[in-house]
């Protein structure tokens, strides 16, 4: 269970971007979070993925309250999440070949043995050819780079996936391909998903339920979340 309770968060003191927001994702559940640009849904996704410390509120991960965020979070909590961002180009180290990009979480957690096999296996899953794995980000298209970023998010076999506008920059075919990879992974592992986006048709098709941003604030909490 991933529980966000009354989260208030922002980037400047006394100017929260989100205020008293609550959202729960059950194990194995896929929840789509829908909202317009600039509403704060990405900030909520960052809090959920332990990437941004909230000013107030609690995050409970599989029954355990989260006390530390970012690099201070304990490894078993940090590695429970796989995150894919909207802009693949900004979330990929330009110096790394795609194979190293995908293997980076393995290196960072000291699991180098078998890394090459795992990268090969994931590359096949996300549809990257051996030729592409040797290239750096500037030598591949946005769609190919996002495929690598998704492989990187899956490499530690996370229990939770957070996809923040994963497909907003991509064409229809690449979108459908990446969503299929995520769903195949979830079917095999039972991982839960928080997918943030602004395309209702996509989230309705992809997720078990779609929640609109406006249903998450404290005022709306009593009425529960709308199912889409």
């Amino acid at each position, binding site marked *: 269970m991933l529980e966000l309770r009354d989260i208030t968060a922002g980037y400047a003191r006394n100017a929260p971007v989100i205020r008293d927001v609550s959202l729960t994702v059950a194990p194995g559940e896929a929840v789509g979070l829908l909202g317009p640009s600039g509403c704060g849904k990405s900030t909520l996704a960052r809090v959920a993925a332990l990437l941004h410390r909230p000013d107030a509120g609690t995050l409970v991960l599989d029954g355990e309250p989260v006390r530390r965020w970012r690099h201070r979070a304990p490894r078993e909590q940090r590695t429970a999440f796989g995150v894919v961002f909207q802009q693949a180009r900004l979330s990929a180290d330009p110096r790394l070949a795609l194979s190293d990009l995908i293997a980076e979480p393995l290196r960072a957690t000291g699991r180098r043995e078998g890394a090459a096999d795992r990268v090969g296996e994931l590359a096949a899953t996300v549809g990257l*050819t051996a030729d592409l794995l040797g290239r750096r980000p500037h030598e591949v*298209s946005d769609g190919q780079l996002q495929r690598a970023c998704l492989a990187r998010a899956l490499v530690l076999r996370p229990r939770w996936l957070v996809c923040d506008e994963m497909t907003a*920059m991509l064409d*229809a075919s690449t979108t*459908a391909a990446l969503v*299929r990879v995520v769903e195949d992974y979830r079917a095999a592992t039972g991982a839960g998903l928080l997918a943030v986006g*602004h395309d209702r*048709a996509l989230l309705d098709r992809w997720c078990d339920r779609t929640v609109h941003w406006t249903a998450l604030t404290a005022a709306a909490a009593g009425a529960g979340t709308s199912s889409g």
Partner: protein
Amino acid sequence: MTGRAPVLSVRGLSVRFLMPGGRRVAAVTDAHFEVRAGECLALIGESGCGKSVLASALLGLLPGNAQTAGSALLGDLDLLTADERTLSRTVRGRLVGLVPQSPAAHLTPVRTIRSQLQETVAALTPARGRAALRAAAEAAAERAAFPADHLDHHPHELSGGLAQRAATALALVGDAPLLLADEPTTGLDRDLVDRTVDELRRHVDSGGDGGEGRALLMITHDLAAAERIADRVAVMYAGRIVELAEAAAFFGAPGPRHPYSRGLLDALPDRAFTPIPGLPPELGALPDGCAFAARCDRATDTCAVLPPLTGTVACHHPHAALTEAADRARTA
């Protein structure tokens, strides 16, 4: 609309990039299409298929290692052979208005929208004098539905939608007969996409000499946006236009005829949501035959030969055209 003379007529346009080591990248190959006054042509395709290179070629903004062939006639002027002086003094802004991909990056960050509009008005129109420039800039903002009370804001103070309107206002100042929109909706949410393309459509239907409207070439990978406003659709794959169809027939019945176009539509979440298998080919190492054959379930041995664009589609095994007109076009 078909009776009108084309505003832009592209004939056999090809763009090659010469890379270090003698490698050649075929970004655009043998593109033929026309855009008429009062018409919106949507150029769609996956990222990296050559769409934006085509736009750069039309504005004379290709990098130095590019080689072009063919012609792109805007009236009597060939955009591909025009010199920089002609392009900067008579084409950009005056004959072709560019609606940019990222308005926030297109606007000058340190100046207000009013100041940028006035500069553009001074450069492109006969208006002179402080009061006249001010009035003309306000009129330009109003044409793009940019609110007058936001004119003194800087770009970073605007929402994505208002920044888009400011960029559109700048593109409309010169009253160019051709609008070129390069991915005008990337990163916008759905409501904003709808509003932005509806406004572009409004500018197509109004304006232009004699009120017959402007021509709009919209480059996009957003199929929903294309369906919303396009009259015709050109589908690009691996640098070639593989299908050129009426939008109503393409998005409705009988549907697209090229297997790639069909695959793109089937990938939409409100349709089959099925991806096209495989990846697009490298533009530096295209096969001799049909570039889509490796991903196509209709491919046979004949696909080793490049299919020409006959009628509306470049394919050896197109899906059936249900109308007589399309059949006639194919055999013609």
